[in-house]
């Protein structure tokens, strides 16, 4: 018997907006799917592009990246820098054939507890439909004799 596929989703969120927003989701008793592992970073500006690649390499089927809305960054401009980086990185990943549909970028503020739940639910449903990201997971053992 094979277990039904439960996607692993890694969420990289900023400390000030999205993490607080996700906290609000909890304190508001809004239920959402439990497939997400939240990794809190100080700011989206700190979310190095390689963290995304590392998440896939370590078995993530989907990735959420979320931080403060433009203009609301705790450090004034971290999210603007992050946005530029994503604009380039997303194109590059797509060019290399990495499945960018498995990566969701979002702005979730500290007041948007409901949006966080909605985001996680949507992403989880989407990734569940896509299935496991097998081809990336297989890289770990390919090319070693």
């Amino acid at each position, binding site marked *: 018997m094979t277990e039904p596929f439960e996607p692993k989703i890694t969420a990289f969120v900023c400390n000030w907006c999205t993490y607080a927003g996700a906290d609000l989701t909890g304190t508001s008793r809004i239920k959402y799917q439990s497939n997400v592992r939240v990794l809190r970073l100080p700011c989206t500006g700190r979310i190095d592009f390689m963290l995304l690649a590392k998440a896939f390499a370590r078995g993530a089927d989907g990735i959420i990246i979320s931080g403060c809305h433009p203009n609301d960054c705790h450090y004034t401009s971290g999210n603007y*820098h992050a946005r530029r980086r994503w604009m380039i990185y997303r194109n590059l990943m797509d*060019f290399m*054939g990495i499945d960018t549909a498995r990566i969701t970028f979002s702005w979730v503020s500290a007041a948007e507890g409901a949006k966080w739940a909605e985001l996680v639910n949507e992403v989880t449903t989407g990734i569940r439909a896509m299935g496991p990201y097998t081809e990336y997971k297989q890289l770990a053992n390919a*090319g070693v004799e």
Partner: protein
Amino acid sequence: MELREKAKQLLESGEVKAVIGYEPGTQGARRPAFASSAARTGRLGFEGEQNLASYVTRKEVKRLGRVAVAARPPVLRALLQLMAERQIKEQEVLPLVLDADGQVQELATAQAMEEHLALSPQQIPARDRELMDRLGGMTRQERWDFWQGELSRCIKCYACRNSCPMCYCEHCTMDCNRPQWVPVPSHALGNLEYHMVRAMHLAGRCVECGDCGRACPVGIPIHLLTFNAEESVHAQFGQRAGASSKLDYALSTFRPDDKETFIR
């Protein structure tokens, strides 16, 4: 005045300590050549492939003193970008170019370099453009298969990195091991992550000389990865690396109205 004569003059007057150009190599190739005395200028020429700007940041070359460089447009762009990144100063390098009359001209200032470059528009070679378009037309899965096939041949010799004029870091992120950010072994994951990091680190900095791809001993078109990153900077932020010695790094700046379509 032709290059050899100019080189001789510059070395004899002591204006530069070495002239870097090209000379006939073996196997019908032309290769980089260093002339450190007037007696050694006899084979120097402008024609060759390796981007000579990759030498001017090397410790062994910096130690020589001021150098003159036979500078085709990609070399000039790389030199300007190195100035923008504060890796070389105007007075450390003297680019030599051929003017419209076939005379060797000294471009002693960044401004002169920029003006000379403005004469020849920057273009990705047709063959590369064609392959990029072909890749663009593929499905994601086809692109994945294409790159996995290509990168499986990678032996991680770092010829691409070491040939690149913009890869001057003394301690490359590939060599960092606390943490071990990118796997050292040349297995599938190590190769993919290496080329991903290389392309991202060159986004907004790649002068599109294509030398990484040319250097690859196993013929992987890796230059297309940095081209993609650079083109995407140009398309979205409107600037090209190597255009000016005063260029801001595209990824360390931003505009509040940067336009994207994928963040929800």
